[in-house]
């Protein structure tokens, strides 16, 4: 059976530390002002603010990146097939084909795609991360690639490797013995905005 790469994020474990968010920027050469992976606070108005009234308060964290949807709306709207579904189930972008029309950004219900409005600003001002991270220029759309340069070599995505809480898991959802498939099964993995029919391959357990 072909592979279907997916991710499981354990919200019971997630401490909202942003380590995966920074790791993603580092590994993937993401410029200032842009994120492929963000940590949302489920709670009050600000980052880390809870809802409710002290001491009856509640807070949760939701790491959010490309959901690598099985039924990906972004893939459907891309006029030049720059955004595509790889054989192993990843939603990837051929950055050389992208014409910057941003249809995909409008189509994505998760708001996880970012656009290079200007020449990318990097601090420090050189390319960082893995040497083979695809380069992107001004005027194109980019997003989480499940660290394609690493996964292609059989490695885990960088955010999975670094998560201090060990909350992130990656693997083949089609392999019933994989950690991700087991987690989805035993802990009843949930998908975001399930009603949109996008069939995300990123699951959350809690």
């Amino acid at each position, binding site marked *: 059976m072909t592979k279907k790469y997916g991710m499981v994020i354990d919200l019971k*474990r997630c*401490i*909202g*530390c942003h*380590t995966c*968010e*920074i*790791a993603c*920027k*580092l590994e993937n050469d993401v410029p*200032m*002002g*842009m*994120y492929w992976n963000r940590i*949302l606070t*489920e709670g009050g*108005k*600000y*980052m*880390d*603010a*809870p*809802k*409710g009234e*002290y*001491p009856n308060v509640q*807070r*949760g964290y*939701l790491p959010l990146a490309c959901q690598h949807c099985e039924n990906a709306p972004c893939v459907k709207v891309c006029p030049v097939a720059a955004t595509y579904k790889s054989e192993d189930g990843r939603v990837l972008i051929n950055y*050389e084909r992208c014409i910057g029309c941003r249809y995909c950004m409008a189509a994505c*219900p*998760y*708001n996880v795609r970012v656009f*290079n*409005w*200007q020449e990318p600003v990097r*601090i*420090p001002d*050189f*390319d*960082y991360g*893995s*040497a*083979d991270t695809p*380069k992107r*220029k*001004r*005027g194109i759309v980019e997003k989480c690639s499940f660290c394609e340069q690493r996964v292609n070599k059989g490695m885990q995505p*960088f955010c999975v*490797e*670094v998560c*201090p*809480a*060990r909350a992130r898991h990656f693997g083949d959802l089609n392999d019933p013995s994989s950690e991700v498939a087991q987690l989805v099964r035993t802990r009843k993995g*949930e998908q*975001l*905005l*399930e*009603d949109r029919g996008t069939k995300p391959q990123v699951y*959350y357990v809690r």
Partner: protein
Amino acid sequence: MQSEKESKGFSISRRNFLKGTAAVGTTVGLLGVSTYGLKWLQPAQAQTEAKEEPIRSVCSPNCWQTCNHLVTVRDGKVVKSAPAPMPERTYDRICLRGLTHLQRVHHPERIKYPMKRAGERGEGKWEKISWEEAFNTIAEKFSQLRKQYGKQSIAIVGQSGNYGVLNGGYAGQYRFSGVLEAVHATGSVDTSLSTGFAAPMGTGIFDAYSNEPLDWVNARTIILWGSACAETQINEWHFIQEAKEKGARLVVIDPIYTATAQKADIWVNLRPASDTALALGLMREIMAQGMVDKDFLLHHTCAPFLVRSDDKQFARAEKKPLVWDTNSQSAKPHDSSGIVPELEGTHPINGVACTTAYSLLWDKVKDYTPQKVAELTEVPASMVVEVAHLLAANKPGGIKFGFGADRYHHANLLGQAMITLLGLTGNMGKSGNILGMAFYGFDPMIYNAGWLFPAGTFPAVLPLMRLQDTVIKQDPHPVKALYIMCSNLLVQTADRNKWLKEVWPKLEFVVAVDQFLNNTMDYADIILPAAHYYETEEPVLAGDVPYVLYRRQALEPLLEAKPDWEIYQGITTKMGLGQYFPEKLQASKEWFDMPILKQQGITFDKIRQEQAVRFLPNPYIPWKDGKFKTESGKLEFYLEKMAATAEELPVFKWPLEAGPDSKLAGKYPFVLLTRHEKFRIHSQYENQPWLRELNPEPVADLNPKDARAKGIADGEMVEVYNDRGHVVLKCRYNESIRPGVVHIQQGWWRYVAGHHQELTHAQFKEGIFNYSFFDVRVDFRKYAGGELH
């Protein structure tokens, strides 16, 4: 927006996704479509498949995680940090801060070369000088001061900025101050709680007294006391989480609803500074319900020791504390064979009434009923009972302290109460116990005296918080110069106005060493650019990992930066003392020349090769034999030495300012808590662009009720003030904050006006010398600019 349905169960809607995090987009201008050309349509350049061999380094600020990093250097630039594989992979680690090191190494604001002051202190005018001139100036000035005022007119000031042996604040720095016979001003942070905690075990305050983290997964009850572990010892969190998944119950004691408290089964949101009352309440409940571990108490603690009513010391025979033997109905040395010691009771010995330490403890705690504790702490009585029962009955377990509860006067009594609780419940020496904090860098390695003091001369060690008065009074000897390294002194110590207005004018000469122009550097006369962790090679003291660690150099120091060790070499050579600072490999090799490593055949070559070598048993569980390092070999929670101040047993006292009984409570109704959050380690990483994207500016977190009562809207500028000073910053409504508390993240370098460290004070408890950063009262008001307090 009604059309936006919530995903099942998640409270985040599509609208939330659109909001993003923090200040996303602030640096990206909305350049229109019309401005872009076709350049970006050109094919991307062929990708390099270069073989890259990462170098293994250690990140070592004072989060005590000492993460080993694999550092990738490409074309002379750091392009990546990643977790290095540890001997036990469960210790592989890094964090959001450690991942930004490339921004520190290549930061545009890094100090480029040595400089001397060209304007007034604090004016920020600098003139480039050569290292040669810097070394000459410092050596000449030091020599002149030594001649004129004595060797102790120079104070070497250090804090916890680096655990590196050569270049950090704990070993090489002592060697420097010892060779110069200067004052060595350090410590005074995190030392009160730990003093009370360690004394009953007879250990040093940061010795290897706790089980190592990989064993914590076996705990059944974990109490995190004043610890925001999930942010501050971020790489210890997963062990606690794993314990929870195996069924452990987690109690978090913190007035603030932190990300750690969020994960608790029981969040004890006590009133600031009431911690010791809670601890006494827990003890009372455990003792009253007969839930103590009697066997452990009788055989491994001082509980049965008889205390004389006249001098409050243990009754002794041949130097040995006596217990009451119920078999023979007589007093016997505690370690006599065949005796059955009595736990509670009073007996006359040579005409002096003597009572067991256990009975005396009961006298101290018996009034702390759950109801009384509820009044003092504002924690429900039922919660006090529940936590007590967990610790005593759901074993094994332990208490991990952070230093939130350490930041009050009398915190030593809380530490003593915590260790007493653990003794009462017999939780020590067993798998699954946590004893305060895991720390393996100092014991036994810091006692490497020959290495630290090769000249046979010593520094005059001074608790850092006594430096202010020593300089101001120039007593007991003149102090004319400070040499500050591994420390952002004016941001990480209290009473900033006193430093600047009273201490600084008495100083003839201030040298400060750092990577950035933080606002301690602003007030120096000479500033020297320090090398980054990745730019040095040296042994590194371990934090909470049971290894000896070694850092390799990933790249040459950039610009004109130098490792601190080379700076010592430069200065001491000019003073004719250079022989004590040999070449770094030689010095590193000599450091590891210690018995505990030799016995295990751990050589320097092995360490330099493997870089992380276990030197403690796996798993490390101390106290298995129930023998402590006290004179009696038992856990002496009754501290004879403290009898003079009636603190031989833990007692509860409100601290100087933060308690409700404070004279300042009317004028300054709020307690200021300046806690550590995830975006910095103390003041390190403050100017890291990726971290500032997420956490762009200082804010005063206020409970909305408190802010509204003063007519202050969310996001308005406020001035937080007291008699010592003020700070101006934006307010943020935040329901994590207990009403009556103002919270500001510690570590910020600069504000619109003032500084949070203007508000703190440097009053200390005699013999304890610890900054009470949270024992501070303030008020706040809307800030409209213009006239400042």
